[in-house]
């Protein structure tokens, strides 16, 4: 019943102008992951070890103002920190315009195509999207806002985030944008586009049969965004001074709120992005460290894929009486990733075969938590250091 209500509501919201012509698309969109956020929500809840994790934006329970369990905190985190990227928040007046640009008639419909900038409104920071352009977010502390420009200002930020520029995806170098691949012309299910949709002929010489089980991206991606331990703090007390150097923390609300709160001694409040009202408590996020040079191999859907620490949480909750309800508790772990940092040359043999942290069971930072997929088996581990590998590699050197 509730979902039906939301569907009607969404039709109404999509309806304003676009749906008069694009009724079908409006309905399709209200079921898409971009609208329901089902994947993000269920993965996050799964990371928090919540049994009933399969939820979407319409079935997400309303968080309590005084949470006492990890469930309450997880819902609160989602609604007040993560779902800032919901379509309704990005473009409240006309949902379609969150991704598309407006056009007037049939002849200029090309204008409506989603531009890269529109995609990067949400697919930025730690997430796949900006890495396509070779961007890796700077750390939050004030001292990382470098280099100063010639006028003495901090560098210009893209969507509020400072970036390191690393090597770009080869597709980006050749002028591709997101929708060059992610469109419904190449694949009917555009969310699951794959490399072989375009690259159907690959040379057998460079792609030997013993690497058949490895996904294209595992070898051909140059780097990936790894954020070790997302340190999450919900604080209902006004400990703003601890964060004096961390105002710019990939959260536009905090960036504006914190300086003001210190100046005017405001109580700690933050909006719930679904009902758009202010509630008690602030969610801060930090990391243990972030690195671009690491990667991890795992088994996922019968292939060897890459994993990265993303939903790897250390959760703390300090309530308004300054009591610590949840104290630095660890949740979650690694998830499958498809870094969009494709290069022609691929990784070198040693990067997997001689790398202790690439194969997950050996990685010391990794304590066994995988939200998706499974770690490499012992047999696969052995194969990484097999005599066959060594012989073939040595042969390569003496050619």
């Amino acid at each position, binding site marked *: 019943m509730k979902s039906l209500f939301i569907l009607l509501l969404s039709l109404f919201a999509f309806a304003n102008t676009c749906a008069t012509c694009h009724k079908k698309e409006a309905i399709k969109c209200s079921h898409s992951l971009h609208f329901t956020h089902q994947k993000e929500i269920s993965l996050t809840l799964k990371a928090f070890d919540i049994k009933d994790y399969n939820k979407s934006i319409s079935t997400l329970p309303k968080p309590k103002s005084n949470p006492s369990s990890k469930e309450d905190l997880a819902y609160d985190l989602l609604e007040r920190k993560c779902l800032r990227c919901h379509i309704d928040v990005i473009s409240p007046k006309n949902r379609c315009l969150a991704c598309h640009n407006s056009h007037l008639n049939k002849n200029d419909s090309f204008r409506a195509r989603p531009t890269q900038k529109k995609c990067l409104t949400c697919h930025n920071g730690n997430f796949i999207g900006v890495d396509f352009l*070779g961007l890796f977010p*700077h*750390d*939050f*502390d004030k*001292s*990382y*806002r*470098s*280099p*100063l420009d*010639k*006028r*003495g200002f901090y*560098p210009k930020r893209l969507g509020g985030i400072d*970036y*390191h*520029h*690393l*090597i*770009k995806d080869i597709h980006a170098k050749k002028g591709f944008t997101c929708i060059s691949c992610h469109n419904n012309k190449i694949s009917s299910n555009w969310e699951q586009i794959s490399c072989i949709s375009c690259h159907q002929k690959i040379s057998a010489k460079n792609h030997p049969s013993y690497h058949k089980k490895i996904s294209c991206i595992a070898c051909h991606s*140059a*780097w990936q965004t790894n954020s070790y331990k997302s*340190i999450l*703090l919900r604080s209902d007390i006004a400990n703003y001074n*601890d964060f*004096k*150097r*961390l105002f710019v923390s990939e959260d536009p609300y905090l960036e504006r709120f914190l300086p003001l709160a210190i100046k005017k001694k405001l109580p700690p409040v933050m909006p719930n992005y679904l009902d758009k009202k202010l509630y008690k408590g602030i969610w*801060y996020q*930090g*990391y*243990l*460290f*972030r*690195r*671009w*040079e690491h990667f991890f191999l795992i088994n996922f859907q019968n292939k060897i894929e890459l994993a990265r620490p993303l939903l790897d949480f250390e959760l*703390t909750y*300090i309530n308004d009486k*300054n*009591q*610590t309800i949840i*104290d*630095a508790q660890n949740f979650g772990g690694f998830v499958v990733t498809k870094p969009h940092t494709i*290069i022609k*040359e*691929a*990784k*070198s043999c*040693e990067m997997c075969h*001689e790398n202790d942290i690439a194969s997950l069971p050996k990685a010391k930072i990794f304590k066994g938590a995988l939200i998706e997929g499974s770690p490499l088996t012992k047999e696969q581990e052995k194969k990484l250091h097999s005599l066959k590998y*060594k*012989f073939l*590699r*040595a042969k*390569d*050197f*003496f*050619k």
Partner: protein
Amino acid sequence: MKQILFLFIATFLLAKESCLLCHKNYNDLDRYHTIKEFGCISCHGGNGKAKEKTKAHQNIVKNPARLEHAKIFCSKCHKNEIERIAKSLMNTQSGILDVLRFQFKKPPSKSFLLEKINNPKSSFVANGAISKSKGIKAIQTPYKNLVQSHFAKLCAACHINEKQSVFKTIPKRGGGCIDCHEAPTKQGEKHIKFTTIIPDKNCLKCHNRSNRIGLSFHGIYESEGYNRYKNGKLSNKLDKYRRFIKLPADIHHSKGKMLCIDCHTEVGIMGDNKEHLHMEEAVDISCIDCHKPIFKKATNFPLATKLAYLNGKVPLPKDKVAITHKKGTPIYNLQKIGKKIVFFRKSDGKALSMPLLNHLAHQQSFHKRLDCSACHSKWIPSCYGCHEIYFENARQFDWIKLKKTHGQWMELRNYLRFEDSTLAIGYNNKIMPTAPGCQVFMNIFDKNNSFKKSFISLAYGAWNPHTTNKSKKCITCHFNSSSLGFGKGIMHFHKNKLTFIPFYDSNASSLELPFNIDALNSINGEQLQGFSRKNARSFNKEEITKIINVYKCAICHNKWSDPIYEDFNKSKKLFYQKQTSCAKRLLQ
């Protein structure tokens, strides 16, 4: 004899001192410097006969441990030490000043850098300092250049003779002798206490920046500044704004529970009565001093007996005592008793057995050029990109004048890492771990707040990171782009050709460099960043090829104990003559 006479006079004078009438219940400084024997005036000056405060306090010195006062008050007994410390690096600061001179005075311009890339034969890297630094005493106001201004505004805070407690928020530093020799006091003790067992806390007051040796030794890595809470409080606070994460500590700390001073000798720290330019000239200890020790008769080294006596925990050396290889100064806590070699911990006198360097791996000829730290350090803290901004129109606290003066410095950075170090030839002509130190991107804004000039001065530094642990694997150096000095990226060796794709794009990150910021040298062996020491340099082409050629064999023969390494040249010869079993399969 002189000392006894002095003590006698002091006791005699004390009978007449009126200080203790007001200053009641003061504790002794240590078991030698007691109030009973020394009184107050022998250290603090003043008038012990007067009974009014103003008269009694005439010419009084609050902190006689400051070097200029110590020269007067403490010289009767400690003349030698005070002379030495005055010439030591911690007082002259010539090490810091010399590196600053190197960074600010002769920076390679951007066009120079570009030329270097296009024309490998030209050389831009200025290694070594321009002339000998005269140390802190040569600095006079108004500051003539960036070096002096930078030193006064930022570095001078860690001078041994700095005024203590200028700011309440900053940990207490300086104060002369007590900068190091201050012992923790118990509750109710009003006077500071002395110790010769220097707690690590005292060293860490200063040795926590730049190459962060003090922190690394304790397994502390200065992190990117993210807050972490435990029990409702910030749990990873280094100071007000700096945060840390715990990494594996040096084995001497984690297993041996050793202090800094367990290795670092008195002469190495307090100086050898010569003015040195750099740390490596002053420090006398090295790994082999303990792990491959030279012993001499203890009776020939009265200093060893004196220091052991002052320490009070380490037994007096009676039989034989170790000396340093470099300067021949005694290491009083490493003794040979009969045939047994014993290391005594200075903090509690506990005897530890000394693992000696007779492992076969160290007797092989091919790793002779390596410094111990090249293999045995687990991680090195590296700070990439040091964006220095100087505002001429603003004011900032000046640690020499102790007030705000014109000119303000601001420091920004690019990113931090704690991973496998870049290897290069260090100051001692040996292969050592290196890290950026410092990659200066200087911007100067003039009095009208508009841009004046900018320059780039990139340098690497070699040092022992103090994260000693088990040795690295062969591949960590022999086929690793960051160890070879290329930086992080993807390195391929295909058809006898080395290629490298760096991850970092300096130009796009508006650093205006033609190479990735973590590259010390290119794959063709051209040095891209400087060293402040004359001997130091990056690997050249020949060395890079040599290192990678070993990897060809180390793919399979990946243990140092493998028989092919017994005589590697012979093994290679046999291989290329197709006389080995693997050659028959590989060289087809």
